[in-house]
């Protein structure tokens, strides 16, 4: 079975400060790792994903994440946040399931940016 743990339910940060959102996963099989963002009253949008290769993955809006296999972590970072980054961030693992992808989401981290 797979599981995803997002250690922080809320992260308040001042504008232009750096931020790290933590994610750890557990799986007995190889998985793919994703970060999705949900802006207020909207659906989810892909930020970035790790499939293979370089462990540092760059995504949209200046976000990046680093895959660490030994620590089973996939932490999300941004060097300088903006008010517009206020949203809920979901870490997820994906496993193949027939001709679908089965995604298991973490519980989410609410990023709130203070001016």
């Amino acid at each position, binding site marked *: 079975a797979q599981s995803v743990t997002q250690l922080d339910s809320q992260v308040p940060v001042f504008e232009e400060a750096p931020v790290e959102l933590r994610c750890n996963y557990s799986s007995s099989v190889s*998985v793919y790792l*994703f970060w999705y963002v949900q802006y207020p009253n909207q659906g989810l949008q892909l930020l970035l994903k790790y499939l293979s290769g370089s462990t540092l993955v760059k995504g949209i809006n200046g976000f990046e994440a680093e895959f660490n296999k030994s620590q089973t972590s996939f932490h999300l970072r941004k060097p300088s946040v903006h008010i517009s980054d206020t949203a809920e961030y979901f870490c997820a693992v994906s496993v*193949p399931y*027939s*001709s*679908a*992808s*089965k*995604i298991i989401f973490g519980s989410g981290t609410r990023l709130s940016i203070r001016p």
Partner: protein
Amino acid sequence: DTAVSQTPKYLVTQMGNDKSIKCEQNLGHDTMYWYKQDSKKFLKIMFSYNNKELIINETVPNRFSPKSPDKAHLNLHINSLELGDSAVYFCASSQGVGTGSDTQYFGPGTRLTVL
């Protein structure tokens, strides 16, 4: 231009009623999904269809019945609505390559409130 659309956006109804939510995607994807997001923002997959065939059927009450008339549409019908069904329901789609690496594209959500 909307990639994944859902109707209605809001649905308020009484306990015991039957309601449907519709989803359409114009991305040419083969696989579609339904997710439920509860009041604590926790997201869980409910169903997945690939080209009109049911692929994923999680532990969901049989009051919930998905229907896929064609690969671009996946509707969700809910019988005998209960208070606990109140949530935001998201539709998503992906190419359906079956490797687990697909990006899923989400609709804007349908907020269901059962009174």
